[in-house]
């Protein structure tokens, strides 16, 4: 794994995603991109802008609106020897394709006794923050992280946006990649390779007082909170999960055993969230080392409301994280 910052350059998360797609198209002719408005429109969030002109309509394929249909086609194409990147415009529409993803993509290898496999990558925009209201703001990572046979990635940095797609395409099994819409315009360094295996969590900030576990769109908020706490001389350790299935339990447990305290920050609705799973894992594997109960900061139990102030109140926020850390350390000021 290359981690030197040699010829690293700074780019937006959006450009990093595009660069990753371009590299994968260049390196493997079996790779093609298929989805709603990935071509003529340039991608609903501009990620695939220019690719149709560059690669033509055999490799950049605009699909009709039929999520179940074109995801199923992607599964079949993968079975047939291709390496499809299927873009489901946003996770909000993925329920229409969920039967294909869960009952076909995730089961084919097992049902066939290992004879067939589905080297398919599905990309979806996800998350809230643009005031898109109740049907367009979902964080459903845990719906998919619950499914054996799938792998689920959540790139939270520009570097992961740049390289995780290529790692996913190396995997012989179906991989889902969640791209948080609030990260698209964020700028950051891109190295000349991935920092770690696709399935490894990364400690984004070392600390000794408490472990903050998060992923995707919440990472920037957690890092902000960590810096604010630094000023108060609280040393926070930040774990970026990166891969939501399988989970890198070793890294999580090692950190909690060091800090004895943990908070999970997850944009999913609290009840039935991935945060619950993480709390349970810590309960099972690090209970005796805990100095305080693991806490969860998640989205409130409400379909995301349209108005800015209510959307803000519904989602995990920096001040919440800071306060929760202080409460847990009994360092109320």
């Amino acid at each position, binding site marked *: 794994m290359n981690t030197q910052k040699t010829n690293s350059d700074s780019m937006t998360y959006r450009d990093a995603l595009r660069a990753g797609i371009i590299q994968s198209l260049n390196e493997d002719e079996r790779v093609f991109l298929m989805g709603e408005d990935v071509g003529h*429109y340039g991608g609903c969030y501009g990620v695939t802008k220019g690719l149709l002109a560059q690669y033509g309509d055999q490799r950049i394929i605009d699909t*009709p609106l*039929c999520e179940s249909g074109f995801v199923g086609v992607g599964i079949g194409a993968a079975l047939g020897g291709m390496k499809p990147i299927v873009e489901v415009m946003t996770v909000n529409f993925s329920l229409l394709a969920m039967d294909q993803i869960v009952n076909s993509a995730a089961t084919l290898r097992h049902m066939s006794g290992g004879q067939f496999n589905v080297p398919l990558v599905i990309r979806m925009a996800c998350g809230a923050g643009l005031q898109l*209201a109740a049907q367009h703001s979902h964080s459903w990572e845990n719906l998919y992280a619950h499914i054996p046979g799938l792998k689920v990635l959540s790139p939270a940095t520009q570097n992961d946006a740049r390289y995780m797609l290529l790692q996913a395409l190396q995997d012989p099994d179906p991989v889902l990649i969640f791209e948080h819409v609030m990260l698209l315009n964020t700028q950051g360094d891109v190295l000349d390779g991935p920092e770690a295996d696709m399935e490894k969590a990364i400690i984004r900030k070392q600390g000794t007082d408490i472990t903050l576990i998060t992923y995707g769109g919440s990472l920037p908020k957690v890092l902000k909170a960590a810096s604010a706490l630094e000023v108060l001389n609280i040393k926070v350790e930040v774990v970026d999960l990166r891969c939501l299935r399988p989970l890198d339990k070793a890294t999580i447990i090692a950190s909690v055993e060091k800090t004895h305290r943990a908070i999970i920050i997850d944009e999913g609705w609290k009840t039935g969230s991935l945060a619950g799973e993480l709390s349970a894992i810590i309960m099972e594997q690090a209970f005796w080392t805990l100095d305080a109960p693991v806490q969860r900061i998640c989205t409130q139990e409400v379909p995301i*409301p*349209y108005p*800015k102030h209510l959307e803000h109140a519904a989602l995990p926020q920096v001040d919440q994280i800071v306060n929760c850390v202080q409460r847990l350390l009994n360092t109320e000021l």
Partner: protein
Amino acid sequence: MNDKLHLDKAHLLEKLKQMLSIRLFEEKCAELYTQEKIRGFLHLYIGEEAIAVGVMAALSAEDQIVATYREHGHALARGLSMKSVLAEMYGRTNGCSKGRGGSMHLFDKHNNFYGGNAIVGGGLPLAAGLAMANKMQATKAITVCFFGEGAVAEGEFHEAMNLAVLWQLPVLFVCENNGYAMGTALAFSESEINIAKKAKSYGMSAEQVDGMNVVNVEAAAIKAVDTIKTLGQPYFLECQSYRFRGHSSFDGQLYRDKEEVQKWQKHGPVIKLKHWLRKNYQLNGNEFSDIELEIKNEILDAIAFAELGQLQAVEDLCKDVYSQKNMK
């Protein structure tokens, strides 16, 4: 059949005013969006006003409407006030959905307006279900479902068409064929681009209508409603139209060229009816500017109303997720 259709000047002036109201209202919305008074996605109906106005003219108060995220025009044509619609886009409690829904989720019980659905195709089975309830309860109401031609590729279109005909549900499907689904032209999304013909393949009465001509739309809608109410069968209208603006607030429109847009704008529903009234009913400049002025004042009142609207209390964040009875 057209005995119900009045082509007198008063009626046509009313249609012109309704279309112009939607047009001017949405032009103002676009402006307010750049001022960040309105946020989220904003899908403008500009160019397609004749469809909502023409169809609504054929409906009665008890009839039910199911629309999409591009539904400002449908809401206004159905009778929602500019005030309640704009306040909703402001996210205020005096909005038609108490500010919870925004532009894509306009609802109004009093007008039997079942909303704004932001899932393409999602409203089709829902409309069939409302129609089923009307049939089971033997009410006179019919349900009207508006959706874009892009929804035709979705499985739910297929399932809803089959159920509506199989169960003979009193529902009117209005496909707003504006040629594009975001940036995807119809030819890239359908193997059969005659949508009315597709509907017919389910055994449904269906026809294509010039969606830029409010009179044609109203006439076709009246006939459709008659058929539904007399025969108790579903009916399908494909209204051929065009979206003058981008798909939503974010759209570079790389997928079509200006000429195409301009060509269609020449035959826009407002300008077309305006010229026709000039030619055949001596509509004069004053009459028209009086109408315009009236609408603009209504818009100004709506803005004032929205600006004065309250924000919901943050404590009420989780309100209306479940019924009071069950609130925890």
